[in-house]
């Protein structure tokens, strides 16, 4: 079985300070991985803001062209020459965005979005068929068309709206979802509902999910494999739980040490371990090095 998505040494550089300045930001630097090679999985991309995780997601969605390297979806490049191919690709890779309140137009009823997605990607025109497709997708996220029809975004709670956003993405029956920080704007009591939903989709519907986050705890909870990115570079990559149980790269260790949990609350002062921060900064300043394999299947960047 070939992989669903293959990222082959992809880099993305943005010019800054005008075209003539010659300066560039290396948002993504030589990233390679593949997703869905052994059946559906949740693949997590972890990194801070500025680590290039959103740029990577935009490249996978075909919204940005990589400066170097290649992204293949089911063996085909994701940057398409014509509109028809592009539409076919969009039906197979669907995004879920961070803030559901901004993803929906507040002046339009939410079922209009679902209907237009169904018409466009499933080539349906008869209303009953469109309704059936919408209801099927809403059932997958634990809602029904009857609950959602005729509602405006402000009439739904944040958690419901995020589930509608996921249902919309599921209408074309895509094999891959790109979820960029889908729970960071959702309240604590609803966060696990969304996270559990992503896991159910993998287990019961066979959808692979690229889950982009900076929350290590939910990443541990649902992901099969993950990459940790620091300033555009992959520093550690492989099976999720072994890596988060015992991160090896200095930056991964710093991230894990900075996660707040009730168990680690000491009542003393909160400080970021200076030696870890220093090691992480040194790794960033030093030569890029290369990814080296480990017996448990992970890759770690070493100078």
């Amino acid at each position, binding site marked *: 079985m070939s992989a669903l998505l293959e990222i082959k040494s992809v880099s993305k550089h943005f010019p800054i300070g005008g075209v003539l300045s010659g300066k560039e930001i290396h948002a993504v630097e030589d990233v390679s991985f593949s997703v869905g090679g052994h059946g559906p999985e949740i693949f997590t991309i972890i990194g801070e803001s500025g680590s290039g995780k959103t740029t990577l997601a935009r490249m996978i969605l075909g919204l940005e062209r990589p400066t170097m390297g290649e992204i293949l979806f089911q063996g085909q490049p994701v940057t398409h020459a014509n509109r028809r191919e592009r539409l076919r690709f969009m039906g197979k890779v669907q995004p879920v965005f961070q803030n559901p309140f901004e993803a929906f137009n507040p002046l339009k009823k939410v079922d209009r979005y679902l209907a237009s997605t169904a018409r466009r990607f499933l080539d349906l025109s008869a209303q009953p068929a469109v309704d059936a497709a919408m209801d099927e997708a809403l059932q997958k996220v634990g809602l029904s068309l009857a609950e959602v029809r005729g509602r405006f975004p402000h009439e739904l709670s944040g958690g419901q709206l995020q589930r509608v956003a996921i249902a919309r993405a599921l209408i074309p029956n895509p094999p891959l979802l790109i979820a960029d920080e889908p729970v960071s704007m959702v309240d*604590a009591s609803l966060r*696990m509902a969304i996270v559990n939903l992503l896991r159910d989709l993998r287990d019961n519907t066979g959808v692979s999910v690229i889950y982009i986050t900076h929350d290590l705890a939910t990443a541990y909870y649902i992901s099969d494999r993950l990459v940790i990115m620091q300033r555009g570079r992959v520093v550690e990559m492989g099976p999720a739980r072994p890596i*988060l149980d015992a991160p090896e790269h200095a930056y991964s260790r710093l991230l894990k040490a900075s996660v*707040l949990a009730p168990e680690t609350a000491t009542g003393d002062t909160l400080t*970021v371990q200076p030696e870890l921060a220093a090691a992480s900064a040194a790794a960033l300043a030093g030569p890029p090095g290369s990814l080296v394999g480990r017996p448990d299947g992970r890759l770690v960047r070493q100078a």
Partner: protein
Amino acid sequence: MADILTVDHLRAYYLMNYFGVNREVRAVDDISLSIARNEVYGIAGESSSGKTSLIKVLAAAIRPPLKVVGGSATYHFKTGDIDVTSADAEAIEAVRWRNLSYIMQGSMSVLNPLRKVGRIFEDFASRPLGLSGSAFRQRVVGHLERLKLSPQVLNAFPHELSGGMRQRVTIGLATVCNPEFVIADEPTTALDVVVQKDVLGLIKDLQRDMGSSIVFVTHDMAVHANIADRIGIIYAGRLVEEAPTRTLFTAPKHPYTAHLVASLPRIGDTTERPALEGRPPNLANPPAGCRFHPRCPLAIDKCKTDVPPLETVAPGQRSACWRWRDVEPLAGGRHRAMELSK
């Protein structure tokens, strides 16, 4: 320990009149609590639970349509007592920034993008401190040192600083007058994990240094666990539970709290985390009885009709639940309770 703030049966509603139709939203409904000097009091609750409205009243920013319809919120400052629900604008102006201060959420939208940081400090703090020129600058530079910021940031525009530095500047603005009481509204929500820990540490150090009290609002229970001395849980405009931090995590006595604690995932634990179904109630038309009953796994008939009082269930712990004796830590929380009680 002397209290610095006493909130007594506070009710603050949004009173609106659209086209002749009166609508009232009971955002803060009969909340009583007190906060001691030198204490960090955490307030947790989901969006639209009324925590922001409560904060608005505490920060003396009560503007229509928000209206205090009953109760009081009295500060006991060294300069005298002041009830912010009835004090006039002049009296509030006299304590603002000097005694009562506020750390805001979005550091990018708080700082004026067209003014240098030094100018912003002047705008904010020159008048309350009663200093100007080099004396003022000296004071600000001294304060920035406590925040581990170099004086050079005064010459920078906000966009030239990183997110963490901007948040430090915002904290600096709020604390440069050495206030007795600081309100921190989700000050770390938009930050990355490493920066978040750093900023929280800074807030805690400053608090110890200045001996002030902080009301810390966030929906992230993990943050509360690390910074708060006591936590109050707000649900649909009411205080449903209040306890010292450790007690709240090990022995919650309200089903909503038990759920919040149990739903926190953690590294090294893969047990199924429960998700709370349903949605927070509409405050314009809250359910009768206990407002949590439609989502509550323990609800009985009594909960649908009678409002449970906030009663003391253990030393320092208050809960508003008819069945608090039956509340047990949930699956994920049980594990956590065992670990914490070691």
